[in-house]
């Protein structure tokens, strides 16, 4: 099963700590001082409506519409998650249109190449931009989960999913017993 981050709206207070942690985890070590409004593109987004505050992010679907929509096989299943091979991304945005959760985006970053000690500009490079579960952080896990001050975010893997299902079945059984009695 692919792992994914879930948000519990009954714990979320809409503070956006997760958004900053996400942007920082993908800043390639630039640190907070590298953050600026124009380049701030967290892969997790806090959404606030009249009745709900919660974070939304990639579900790492088992049969992912983004994977299926990509004409260049740039989106792949790897390490129990959906990952983008950025060098293959064309920036065609098929994946953006295919994603039913609105959590895939295409962004452009400056493309450069090193040649004979010089930095050559190659215009811009497109990137399919989504939650990668911070796989580069290894055992530290997703940055958003680690900072959430109200523990509204959890990393759901097979084990956590089984535990959730077990609790739900237990609750269903108890409720059924009440109805029977």
């Amino acid at each position, binding site marked *: 099963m692919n792992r994914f981050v879930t948000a519990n709206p009954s714990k*979320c*207070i809409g*503070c*956006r700590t997760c958004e900053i942690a996400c942007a920082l985890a993908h800043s390639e070590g630039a640190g907070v001082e590298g953050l600026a*409004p124009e380049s701030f593109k967290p892969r997790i987004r806090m959404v606030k409506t*009249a*009745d709900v*505050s919660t974070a939304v992010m990639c579900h790492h679907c088992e049969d992912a519409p983004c994977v299926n929509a990509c004409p260049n096989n740039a989106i792949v299943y790897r390490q129990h998650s959906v990952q983008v091979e950025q060098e293959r991304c064309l920036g065609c945005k098929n994946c953006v249109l295919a994603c039913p959760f609105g959590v895939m985006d295409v962004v452009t970053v400056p493309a450069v190449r090193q040649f004979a000690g010089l930095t050559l500009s190659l215009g811009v490079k497109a990137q399919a931009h989504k939650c990668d579960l911070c796989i580069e952080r290894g055992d530290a896990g997703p940055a958003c989960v680690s900072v959430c*001050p109200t523990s509204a975010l959890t990393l759901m893997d097979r084990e956590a999913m089984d535990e959730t299902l077990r609790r739900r079945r237990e609750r269903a059984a108890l409720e059924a017993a009440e109805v029977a009695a």
Partner: protein
Amino acid sequence: MEKHMAVCPYCGTGCKLNLLVEGGKVVGAEPLNGVTNEGELCLKGYFGYDFINDTKLLTPRLRNPMLRRSRDAAFEAVSWDEAIQYAAKRLGEIKAKYGPDSIMTTGSSRGTGNETNYVMQKFTRAVLGTNNVDNCARVCHGPSVAGLQVTLGNGAMSNSIPEIEHTKCVLVFGYNVADSHPVIAKRIIKAKERGAKIIVCDPRKIETARLADLWLPLNNGSNMALVNAFANVLINEGLYNKEYVANYTEGFDEYKKIVDKYTPEYAEAITGLPADDIREAMRIYAAAPSATILWGMGVTQWGQGVDVVKGLSGLALLTGNLGRPNVGVGPVRGQNNVQGSCDMGVLPTEFPGYQKVTDPEIRAKFAKAWGVDSLPGEIGYRLTDVPHLAETGKLKAMYVMGEDPAQTEPDLTQVRKGFEAMEFVIVQDIFMTKTAMFADLILPATSWGEHEGVFSAADRSFQRFTKAVDAKGDVKHDWEIISLLATAMGYPMHYNNTKEIWDELRGLCPIFYGATYEKMEGLGAVPWPCRDLDSAGSKYLYEGNVFQRPGGKGLLFATEWRPPQDQLTEEFPLILCTVREVGHYSCRSMTGNCAALQTLADEPGYVTINPKDAKALGIRDQELVWVSSRRGKVITRASVTDRTNKGAVYMTYQWWIGACNELTIHAVDPIAKTPEYKYAAVRVEPIADQVWAENYVQQEYAKLKGGLSNAVTRAAKKAPAFA
């Protein structure tokens, strides 16, 4: 990488953290398992450290003492020696000419720590000879202190922050915990998960209202009517604890007489709440085996703040929710050390440790310890009196430390006139602020992260914080600066470190005496009262239901509801209520210089407005708009949201361009002198030319930032010899 233990400088929760330092620069923060935060931090704690490094995103750090010899001159950098001599001479002259009460000082509820505040009030009382010392509790939880001191005898939270998650009912009144104290919000969520009932009284659909079992969206400005109606229900439905009331309280008959009129039906007309909801709230509250009331600025920032605080404490007294674990009353302090500045006596009424200046024995004790013949016994001026006192010529000089009243006080036009009218203004800060632009002398201090000391968390817990990096520039610790000034004014004052100061004040304050530096080592927290060296302090107050009042009983108090002062008219038909931004703090001089926090929210900020009001005015979401009141006019961005109630608009007070305090009214509580920030009549107008408006905001912002930055860089260039 080095790690240095600190306490977060951003709210009263008192979260312990490590500052991560590389090459003399703070590069990160990680949570520690402190008593109040248990390994959590919010966005300000995690990402709010880079202001120390002088990012200059909003305004530069101060590096040198700066002086201007006339108000039309530019600042020039001067040596510490010249700065101190100049300050001593001017303050001495003003004191000789107009008397000690013509001078006022402020403590700072922010990063400087308790020791500095102690030294500041000592300087004010022993050297200047006045009780004119105050701090921003005046514009914050002043009414909580004044109200609770009368009814229960102690102005602080009666219980500790960790206890919140073990209570069975949380009554949240005028307190947006999610935006003010995110880490305390977790305690409320955990309480709910453990089966607690949550009741929220707030006109806005704040985050906690979303999670509440019962949300009472009362009309803005109807607090007292609702609290009286709560008491009415508790009494008339027989829900109150008769035994507790008989044994541990006084004033019941008088109290009952006043609240009798406030039936839920009577209150319905004032509060706009269905009578049955008012009843339901009290049935839940009274039924809970343990219940805690938490409140914030929605209770205190009113012309009738003290009365409502007293009324809320009455609900706890009626139901016996005091004097034991997991119950009580919680005025949750907003700024990281506003509890501490009150503890340290930067108040015009009290010496450190809540010892009254009007008590001759107390005065004699402090006079002896400080080596002076006598100390002033007259209560001093309040911070909110300053503009008026300055304009009428009573106040001639002010020494502002670590506060930015030209951003945070109500009715800023009046505040500016006040500063202009004064003969001599000293601003001691870490940043060039709007207030510093009015100064004659600017004294640069070390920042949080560059010094050590003790903070008081909202729940009375003393906690130590340490230094992480050396300060850059020609700056000194706040307490060193004040000591130098005292010495130059003929009162030799010298301390080698903060522990010396702490030990001196401990010795003078019986309720703090047992709180030694040793006990606060590492993650240690000592909640006062802590009277003995072998005591661990007091997690909750009023043990055995003994209240700190003459006779030891709690006082039941009620009074009639008074409507807010500003008048809604056709010209100004909407209520403006000022609130806070989760990612910014206080006047924003610190968080506005943090890249991550500034990335999430920047000028001109927002005015939130209900979709119905917005539609009627022809205003669309995210458009720039004008907001004006009888006192001023500012530009800001509309956020159209159902969470905002119809008829009211809300602005956060952190913005320097969209500065809501240009609009707020100087109407104060008669006792606490806290302003009615929560109710100003305003008009919101659309702007047809949005392109012009966007440019205007950018230009004004650039002009403001440029002015602050130039003041510092020009001064440094002029006299670099000793820099």
